[in-house]
């Protein structure tokens, strides 16, 4: 009987042995989201950007402190080196022309030359989706020279080159397509992502299993000085983070990047599996924040918005949920950003001050302890977040209890993301507060967030991202100034105005800085936490073994 049992278990034991003998020139990475569309012009899903960053590179890159560097170009354009110049436009305004020169002998993954025409083609594809509001043309003046024509002066002119799209692969498909969507349906990015001609990074995709996995191998035409170490990288899609963690512990995946474990899971892993993994939890440029609907009847008075901000103890939220290991946010931008002002800070947790503001606005406690306005309205507002997210639920519950202590009722009304996005935000139907995160690029001027022309209304077809409804002429001026000023000194002043006015107007209440959780095996090296979550793979050629 024992013999039979041993024989029956043999295949199982061989399974375990095979798993333990895995060599370290391959890498399996778990990602907690499913990749849908592979055409970069139809999606900006972070998970797609994260995976494609290993295989698709841009003209320039940007460091954490906002410094632009060349990837495909020979020199970063500037006014000083003459590659960027201010020009007079036919309408009498000033614009810019920016010339990028490509390194010689750049190639796509199939060996075809990567030329300036691929950048011009990328612009053409982008225009068909949504014409650029700032760039009028991208011109391939020679096979190695790309000139970007900008309609205004812009501080970020040195990063305006589009990410190239291989014209030799996508050109005929784009030309034959009846419309934008038809192009997406026939694009090689979606039909045959294993086509090496689509990719320009250190890796090319060799196998694509929709909803399951993406496998990559080194791009033999990669021009970078550093050649990728891993001979095979597999990205496995495991949507449930508990299952992802179990896969990590079981050794089925080697690594979980930024689209992986949650903060609390990473903290738990630091205690239980620190001998097997290097676990880094590092701040990003993203901020978890409360969106405030400023024209809500109970929130139009700035004193009431300020009272809410002063009633929320963000330190308690961070200590209860993240063991205090996540930085508290003092603005919608994070420390170290060009526009950040460490001296400005945010409204501190001050329940007594909040009570004073509420009393000043005429609110008095009602029979159930909830404040009542002079017109008899209870101070009851909703908070909405994307449903199904445990951390969102916990944050809402903590804030609900903190606000209730000051006589403000917060009703939690979470919605599926698509509903929150469509009706809650786009049509501004959220009824008070919304709990969301926003991760900007370095030194990104938030004009589309806070400019008064960006308030979605029925009259403008619900167009715009200013879902808070902030309309402050001084803020509009500062935003435009920060966007168009080329001199860093006045730009810094405009940025200071933006941060100060957002603190005063309170269209958002910052909570905490988002972090990237990266879990790598002890034998691995070279993974650097990026400023933008998801972009660690932008330096994948640096990854290797100790």
């Amino acid at each position, binding site marked *: 009987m024992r013999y039979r049992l041993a024989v029956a278990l043999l295949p199982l034991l061989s399974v375990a042995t095979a798993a333990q003998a895995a060599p370290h020139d391959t890498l399996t990475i778990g990602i907690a989201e499913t990749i849908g569309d592979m055409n970069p012009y139809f999606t*900006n899903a972070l998970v797609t950007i994260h995976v494609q960053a290993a295989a698709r590179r841009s003209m320039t890159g940007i460091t954490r402190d906002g410094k632009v560097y060349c990837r495909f170009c020979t020199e970063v354009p500037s006014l000083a080196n003459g590659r960027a110049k201010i020009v007079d436009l036919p309408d009498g305004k000033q614009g810019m022309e920016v010339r990028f020169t490509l390194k010689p002998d750049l190639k796509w993954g199939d060996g075809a030359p990567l030329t300036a025409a691929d950048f011009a083609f990328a612009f053409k594809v982008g225009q068909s989706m949504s014409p650029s*509001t700032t760039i009028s043309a991208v011109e391939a003046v020679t096979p190695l020279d790309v000139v970007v024509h900008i309609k205004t002066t812009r501080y970020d002119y040195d990063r305006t080159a589009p990410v190239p799209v291989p014209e030799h692969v996508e050109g005929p498909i784009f030309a034959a397509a009846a419309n934008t969507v038809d192009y997406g349906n026939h694009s090689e990015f979606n039909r045959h992502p294993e086509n090496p001609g689509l990719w320009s990074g250190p890796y090319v995709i060799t196998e694509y299993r929709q909803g399951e996995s993406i496998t990559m191998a080194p791009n033999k035409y990669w021009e970078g000085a550093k050649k990728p170490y891993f001979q095979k990288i597999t990205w496995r899609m495991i949507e449930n983070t508990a299952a992802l963690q179990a896969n990590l512990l079981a050794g089925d995946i080697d690594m979980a990047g930024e689209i992986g474990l949650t903060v609390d899971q990473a903290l738990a892993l630091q205690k239980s599996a620190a001998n097997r993994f290097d676990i880094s939890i590092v701040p990003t440029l993203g901020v978890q924040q409360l969106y405030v609907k400023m024209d809500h009847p109970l929130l139009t008075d700035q004193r009431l918005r300020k009272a809410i901000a002063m009633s929320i103890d963000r330190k308690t939220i961070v200590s209860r949920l993240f063991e205090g290991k996540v930085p508290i946010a003092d603005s919608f931008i994070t420390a170290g950003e060009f526009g950040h002002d460490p001296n400005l800070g945010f409204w501190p947790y001050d329940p007594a001050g909040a009570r004073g503001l509420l009393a000043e606005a005429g609110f008095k406690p009602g029979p159930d302890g909830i404040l009542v306005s002079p017109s008899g309205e209870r101070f009851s507002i909703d908070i909405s977040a994307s449903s199904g997210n445990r951390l969102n639920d916990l944050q809402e519950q903590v804030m609900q209890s903190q606000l209730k202590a000051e006589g403000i009722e917060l009703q939690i009304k979470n919605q599926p993301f698509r509903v929150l996005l469509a009706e809650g935000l786009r049509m501004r139907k959220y009824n008070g507060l919304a709990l969301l995160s926003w991760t900007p690029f370095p030194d990104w001027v938030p004009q589309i967030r806070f400019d008064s022309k960006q308030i979605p209304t029925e009259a403008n077809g619900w167009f715009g991202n200013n879902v808070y409804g902030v309309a402050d002429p001084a803020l509009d001026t500062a935003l435009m100034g920060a966007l168009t000023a080329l001199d860093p000194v006045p730009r810094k002043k405009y940025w200071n105005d933006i941060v100060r006015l957002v603190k005063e107007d309170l269209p958002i209440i910052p909570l905490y800085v988002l972090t990237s959780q990266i879990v790598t095996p002890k034998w691995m090296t070279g993974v650097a936490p990026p400023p933008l979550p998801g972009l660690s793979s932008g330096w994948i050629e640096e990854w290797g073994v100790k």
Partner: protein
Amino acid sequence: MGRFLIARLASMVVVLIAKSFVIFVLIGLMPGDPVDLLMHANPDARPEDVAHLRAIYGVDQPIGARYLGWLAAALHGDFGYSRAQHRPVLEIVLPALGNTLLLTGTAFVLATAIAVALGAVAGMRRGSAVDRVINLFAYAGISVPSFWLGLLLIYLFAVHLGWLPAGGMPRAGQGQPAWAYLVMPVLTLVIVEIGGLARYTRSAVLDVLGQDHVRTAHAKGLAPLRVGLRHVLRNALIPVVTVIALGVGHLFSGALLVEVVFAYRGMGRLTLEAIMGNDYNLALICLLFTTIMIVLGSMLADIAYAWLDPRISLEGRAVR
């Protein structure tokens, strides 16, 4: 039999057309349309760009017109493209359907065989220690959430013992045999499905045990095993078949959580993604395939009734 099958297939077509309309309208009534998500990806988009895309996707048309357009194309075999993936929907659905059939089909056969056997033994040995153990097992299966059970199995067999892969698709060339990837998802589904069916079989067996023809069979001196199989179980299976047939559809929907926890690419995950991602065509086809499976399950149950009890006529007439 032939007339029965033709009639049932014809009614299935009617059900599918009706259901496609209901699903189409329900999805259309949900807030948001495909362009919302697309525009979320492009904050620079202008109102005219949004309008242009709405026209291309056809979401600027009344829902009735959109449905008729979809139906006309579908009747010509064109089920359209997935909005979220820009691939033909059948190209996405068919592999997922195959995966689900492999997973749920295996689990269904195993769960049914084990549950019927356990239920029959428990019924025929009512009140014994065996009956009590089977009942305990059945109640445990009924009450345990599949998601939690799946995670528990992963921690036991993958993390601690290292015998099986923690999840993924059953494919060759992954360093482990393909069957190893199926063991835990199938086991999870089997444990969860066994409980209810075993209890139902036990009740049906107890009902039949008290009937006259069983007493007569015993009085005639037939062996207990022969009585159990031919006179008790066969009659007890008639109501059980209904539960089994309905279970086909339940296995499709019930597999969602198991698919999620084991990162298994099946219909459950695909349907959820399609609905949450506002992927009209894909959601519609996923739900229609699930409907087909439920209707086919029901049809198989009708055929099984006639086989188990010849007095039941498929033609709708009493057999004398």
